[in-house]
């Protein structure tokens, strides 16, 4: 009986081709995720039962017209100055109840961060890109202030802390610890951004 040495070797030369085929399939059918963005809450449909009276000095009005120009507190300003203006308004603390505010306590500006409201209004023909830039600057103003307080209290950036808190991969023990800190900072500078219905230009 003629014995042959073992099973014949399988030719693996086409393995690369098969792998390439799979690779190309995945390249074509999938996309790299771009899912990051600005989180916002819309106001509920039902108006609140009680009418709250807000003093004019506690409202920071931002108007965007259809050409993308900004009117902030009745004053035409450059988009680049919006963040510093918003920070100055939020951090003003005119009534002295806010002991962590570093603003110049201007009597004609906001009383304290809890009362300060930013009101954003835009035209129906405003470009979406401009709107996002304005939103980004306003959120950035809040984040800058929260970062400052967070650095003072916990020697860490707020945005960094919040990112870790929201990340589902963070262990729950650390998450619970972060939750209190994040909440505390959020209460120091509550985000109050109101959006009125858009006005038409005519």
């Amino acid at each position, binding site marked *: 009986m003629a014995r042959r040495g073992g099973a014949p070797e399988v030719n*693996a030369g086409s*393995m*690369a081709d098969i*792998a*390439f085929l*799979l*690779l190309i399939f*995945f*390249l074509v*059918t*999938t*996309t*790299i*995720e*771009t*899912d*990051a*963005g*600005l*989180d*916002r*809450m*819309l*106001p*509920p*449909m039902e108006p609140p039962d009680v009418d709250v009276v807000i003093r004019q000095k506690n409202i920071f009005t931002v108007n965007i017209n259809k050409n*993308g120009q900004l009117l902030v507190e009745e004053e035409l300003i450059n*988009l*680049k100055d919006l963040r510093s203006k918003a920070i100055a308004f939020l951090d003003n603390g005119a009534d002295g109840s806010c002991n962590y505010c570093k603003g110049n306590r201007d009597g004609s500006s906001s009383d304290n961060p809890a009362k300060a409201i930013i009101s954003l209004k*835009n*035209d*129906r*023909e*405003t*470009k*979406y*890109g*401009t*709107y*996002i*830039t304005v*939103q*980004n*600057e306003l*959120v*950035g103003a809040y*984040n800058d202030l929260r970062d400052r307080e967070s650095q003072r209290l916990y020697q860490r950036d707020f*945005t960094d802390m*919040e*990112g870790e808190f*929201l*990340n*589902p991969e963070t262990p729950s023990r650390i998450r619970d610890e972060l939750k209190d800190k994040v909440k505390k900072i959020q209460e120091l500078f509550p985000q109050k951004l109101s959006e009125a*219905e*858009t006005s*038409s230009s005519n």
Partner: protein
Amino acid sequence: MSKFTKKKDGDLPPVSTASLPDIVFMLLFFFMTVTVMKDSSLMVENVLPNASEVKKLEKKDRVLYIFVGKPTRDYQKVFGTEPKIQLNDKFASVSEVGDFILQERAKKPQELQNVLTTALKVDKGANMGLIADIKMQLREVNALKINYTTYEGDAFRNVQ
């Protein structure tokens, strides 16, 4: 005779391709892990604006997508060049957004129905009027948590 066909010493040995499958598999696994399946093909132009203060959208199963933008060239003959709304795989009018959200919400498991986020993927050239109408629709069906999906980058590039 054999001395005429003698191999020269300086000849390069052939490059071994035995590790090629390994390399390709490595690439394959890389793409399998970092990408996700496309769930709908885009029928609108979708150049998102840039923003720097972004937050990541976690957990894809809790997100509903609304695309807005100019129809791509193939569809421009039929639908014109004004920005349109795309829901799943078809164009829709503003009034259909509310129903779409309710339908999609009903498809999700009970425990997720209250924590859904609506991601607005809007082309940066779109007008705010359309967005305002969509937001109004979302408020009507109580889908209040929204996310303006953006690229990460310098926000001032949007306005140039």
